[in-house]
């Protein structure tokens, strides 16, 4: 089973709140989209902080 971060681009407000709380510096706000640029540890802190609920840690078989 793997764990990963899913970004819902339709919900995302491109605000960068998640970038500032990420302990791994994995996320980046590029112009007008959010991108997972480096390795994510699926800690879920960004998903908590998101004002719009655009981020989700998902577990896949």
């Amino acid at each position, binding site marked *: 089973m793997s764990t990963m971060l899913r970004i819902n681009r339709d919900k995302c407000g491109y605000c960068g709140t998640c970038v500032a709380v990420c302990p791994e510096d994995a996320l980046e706000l590029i*112009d007008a989209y959010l991108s997972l640029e480096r390795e994510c540890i699926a800690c879920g802190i960004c998903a908590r902080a998101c004002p719009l609920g655009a981020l989700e840690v998902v577990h896949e078989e």
Partner: protein
Amino acid sequence: MKNNYDMLVIGGGPAGALAAKTAAEAGNSVCIIEKRPAIGTPVRCAEGVGKELLKQFIKPDPRWISAEIERARLIAPNGTTVSLEQDKAGNEVGYVLDRKIFDRELVWQAAEAGADVIVKTRATAPIMENGAVRGAKVLSVGTPAEIRADVVLAADGTEAQFARWAGLDTTVPLREMMSCAQYLLTDIDIDAGSTDFYLGNDIAPEGYLWVFPKGERTANVGIGISGRKSRDGARAKDYLDRFVAKNFPGGKTIECIAGGVPVCRPLPCTVADGLMVIGDAARVVDPLTGGGIGNAMFTGRLAARVASGCISTGNCSKEALMPYDTEWRASRMGAFLERNYKVKEYFITLDDAKLNTLADSIANISLKEFSVSALIRELIKRNPKMLFELKALKDALA
């Protein structure tokens, strides 16, 4: 693209613009890079600023002022309203800006002073040599390039990645990140001369909800809640939607934005070899109000003044740049940040019953002075039974 400057500024917000303008006026070659395709947009701000603070940096201009504010009202969970009126003696409250125009004006002024401005260009890494920052690797409209500079100013806002890549830890703890959402609502009934702050754990846990007028029937209606209180079904947007449905059911949303406001203490050190950190990236937002525009301009200008001296002597080491860090900490702004951090840490501990008690105690007074310290002194005076509890506040003033 020119690839060598005295100063490179990462980010074209108020901090970066003031820094670039100040450094260019001092005769330095300066370049601002902005990752967005346009300066000033999208806005991530409630747009309130103190009049006196603003005037230290720019002459107020109706082109970028949406509303002039005469009073602030604090609304307690039980509806008790504490109104703070503008002093007749000239003690002024503030403005609600139009940041799209305001930010452009600041960058225009920097450009007019001689700074280069390059948009849709983002830093991807610092150029590091012997542990010192010597410029930035950038992607300019998709094309990689290197811009070298004697000193780099990180003005990249909440994300604050540039300083992080250069070795400073800019990560904001979840509990100290205000998770914010805002609608620009029109066709609503408001007091166009008042900034309203709604408090309460059901309204905005560990934060507040604001109504900042942008005209007669238009306002920024937004909210910030602590990151640790944010979860599915109870996010900033959920609280905001509930408030709007109840209070402004006929309002029309013409803009919807989100944002993160760091309300932690400032970075432990805002300089490194070849690097200065300014504005929101330095975490110099007022932790009590979440206001960051004035402090961004203050740190931007101060950093550029210090940097100008360092550039002319050819020494942009951490030690040489350190007077910037020392000076802002010793300034009025530095003292206010520390005081308001303590005040904020106290207020977030209050339950709704205590918030109501405190609001009721000062509901009918008229404060002579419009300030945080005047408000706190009054609270302490009027709540002798809470003396022990209010000690934290008293200590914050000392």
